[in-house]
């Protein structure tokens, strides 16, 4: 198995290196090594999945000791268990499809091979993140995916906004990563090791003993997750990340990388379980982020940004789940979300492809006729996202809502429920604006065309998956998915069973109702025009502006953090560095030289002056010797 695992992990790296160094040789065939590499990974993960069915507890492989210093021995070790198997499957499937899709999408780009090299590198990093057996190696993957994200967001770097967005993504991520590092330090200082299994063993064999330290550690780790998974307040990079090529958004900023935070929390659930109060915090932030982002999505006009806010919002859901201890539910939502959000992005990419890169939904309309495949798949994705049964999103979202309700966090449940309504509303606002109604921009409409099969086929595959994967979760705790993950994540332990089983059905109906209501309202507003959205916007006034301005968080950060720090830096450089420190040094030199100059000039005088000095000197000597006696 080790061989296959290594192949799965390193094939994309090989692909990246191949494209990176011999790329000129492949030219327009650069996709070939890339897809072969990811294909190998995909096959490998299928085999591994098969293997994991027989080995519920998974296995660890240590390749070599990476950083050995005193007590610290960080191995380059891989841990493959069922959680990793699921992640592996998600990552390789979506990547494989996105790679194929990219052949069509990126066809005419001059940076073709660079694109595939980055993409392969990303897959490698993500797999490393997933397969690591210790926190430090996880962190390696964690930063490496950030790097790839940076490179891919800024892929069209000649556009200032794109390179800015890449930089912003990296820096905001780094803030989270800094927290993550502190978490690692705390763990090491406490446990003397960074390997999952050892830490978990210690924690689980001394329940309650470490809760103080773990509160700090998990808080720090969660800070990393907040950055990577774009939660409030570090979500600001994700909407901007839409500057990157759309397949990248699908892969990195919807399906895989951004979910790394969720994965990490699930992975270290033995730690989070010890400190439920931090779990509640995680869930609260998740819930807040969910509704916060959804509300912004309501008024966003850029179709990709709508999807981006939607991703933030859905990630919030996942954190609600993992925060409340429903790790399987969180991972399940991660699993389904990867497919339908990936699909939505690919479909949005297809729209852009058709309209020559246009993103403003107000310029579109009636595209259904022109591009039926895209339309159909988009709607499937949107329905899945809105939680309409029997599509995938329904199952996973419902499970999260249920777990929130059952653990007694009614407020969180309420917020999540409201978010479900908003989700349906903004998704169908988008659909009605883009695919239905009358074309608003004739030229754009004329130009529009359906994408080539190389793009639509991956979309359809994802669409099918979006419809079907949810059934794995049918039956909640007794579902296939739960049973599969149980050896790794365990069952959700509901402390007091507050709600009877019968109430479950009511909850399901409520959440479905929220979704349907959202769709209905969108239909009324954006297709029928009553209530008129514009009038509503005017009536809302302040709130509308607030939403439109995305709560002005970016501006706030800019004015409160970036500008003052930068200004202070400039000031420090000018005043402290140049004038105070360097000035003092130079002044010392100059004053010495100036004093010297006086002496120097004094010695270029008439003979008489010298002789007077002699007299003076004689007197001083006299005084000296007399004093001495």
């Amino acid at each position, binding site marked *: 198995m080790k061989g296959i695992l290594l192949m799965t992990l390193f094939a994309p790296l090989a692909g990246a290196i191949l494209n990176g160094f011999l790329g000129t040789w492949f030219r327009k065939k650069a996709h070939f090594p890339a897809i072969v590499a990811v294909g190998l990974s995909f096959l490998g993960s299928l085999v591994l999945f098969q293997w994991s069915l027989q080995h519920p507890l998974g296995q660890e492989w240590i390749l070599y000791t990476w950083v050995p210093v005193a007590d610290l021995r960080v191995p380059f070790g891989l841990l493959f268990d069922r959680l990793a198997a699921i992640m592996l499957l998600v990552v390789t499937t979506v990547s494989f499809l996105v790679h194929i899709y990219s052949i069509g999408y990126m066809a005419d780009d001059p940076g073709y091979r660079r694109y595939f090299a980055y993409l392969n590198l990303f897959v490698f990093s993500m797999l490393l993140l997933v397969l690591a057996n210790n926190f430090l190696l996880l962190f390696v993957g964690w930063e490496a995916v950030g790097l790839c994200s940076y490179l891919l967001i800024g892929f069209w770097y000649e556009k200032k906004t794109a390179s800015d967005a890449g930089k912003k993504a990296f820096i905001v991520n780094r803030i989270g990563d800094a927290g993550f590092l502190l978490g690692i330090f705390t763990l090491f200082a406490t446990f003397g090791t960074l390997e999952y299994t050892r830490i978990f063993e210690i924690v689980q064999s001394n329940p309650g003993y470490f809760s103080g330290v773990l509160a700090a550690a998990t808080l720090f780790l969660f800070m990393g997750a907040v950055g990577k998974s774009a939660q409030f307040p570090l979500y600001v990079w994700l909407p901007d990340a839409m500057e990157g090529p759309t397949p990248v958004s699908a892969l990195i900023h919807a399906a895989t990388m951004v979910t790394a935070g969720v994965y990490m929390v699930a992975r270290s659930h033995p730690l989070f379980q010890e400190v439920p109060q931090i779990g509640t915090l995680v869930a609260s932030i998740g819930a807040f982020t969910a509704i916060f982002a959804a509300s912004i999505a309501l008024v966003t006009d850029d179709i990709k940004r709508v999807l981006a806010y939607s991703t933030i919002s859905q990630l919030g859901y996942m954190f609600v789940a993992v925060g409340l201890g429903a790790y399987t539910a969180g991972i399940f939502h991660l699993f389904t979300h990867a497919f339908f959000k990936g699909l939505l992005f690919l479909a949005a990419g297809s729209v852009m492809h058709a309209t020559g890169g246009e993103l403003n939904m107000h310029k579109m309309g009636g595209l259904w006729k022109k591009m039926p495949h895209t339309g159909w798949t988009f709607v499937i994705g949107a329905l899945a996202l809105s939680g309409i049964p029997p599509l995938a999103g329904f199952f996973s979202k419902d499970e999260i809502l249920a777990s929130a309700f059952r653990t007694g966090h009614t407020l969180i449940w309420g917020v999540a429920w409201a978010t479900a309504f908003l989700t349906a509303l903004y998704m169908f606002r988008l659909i009605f604006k883009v695919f239905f109604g009358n074309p608003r921009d004739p030229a754009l409409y004329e130009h529009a065309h359906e994408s080539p099969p190389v793009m639509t086929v991956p979309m359809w595959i994802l669409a099918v998956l979006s419809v079907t994967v949810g059934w794995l979760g049918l039956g909640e705790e007794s579902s296939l998915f739960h049973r599969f993950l149980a050896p790794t994540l365990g069952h959700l332990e509901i402390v007091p069973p507050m709600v009877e089983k019968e109430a479950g059905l009511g909850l399901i109906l409520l959440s479905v109702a929220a979704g349907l209501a959202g769709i209905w309202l969108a239909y009324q507003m954006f297709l029928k025009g009553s209530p008129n959205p514009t009038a509503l916007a005017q009536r809302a006034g302040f709130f509308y502006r607030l939403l439109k301005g995305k709560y002005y968080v970016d501006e706030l950060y800019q004015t409160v953090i970036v500008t003052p720090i930068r200004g202070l830096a400039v000031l420090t450089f000018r005043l402290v560095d140049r004038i105070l420190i360097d000035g003092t040094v130079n002044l010392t030199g100059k004053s010495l030289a100036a004093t010297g100059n006086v002496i120097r*000039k004094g010695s*270029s005088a*008439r*003979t*008489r002056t010298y*002789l007077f000095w002699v007299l003076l000197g004689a007197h001083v000597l006299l005084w000296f010797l007399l004093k001495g006696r």
Partner: protein
Amino acid sequence: MSPNAYILLGLLLFTIGMIGVLFRRNLMFILMNLELMMNAVGLVLVGASLGGWIEGQLIILMILVVAASEVAIGIGILINVVRLTGRPDVDHLPKAPEESTP
């Protein structure tokens, strides 16, 4: 007279010579004042030798020789100055080095 009187007189003469060197501008007079200073030393030595030390008187002879050679060199230099500037003025020496370089 006591030795101290000689010594005091010698010092007085020395001071007069010194003042002369300091304030005269004519090189010739400066040389003469230098000579005066030398000879003032001689006077002090006379006073010193009153105590019976013959050494002092011997030194006077040497001083005379030294003073003479000093004047010889001084005159030599003076001639050069006069040749170059036309006057033996200590404040108008030939081509003074730049008074101050910035």
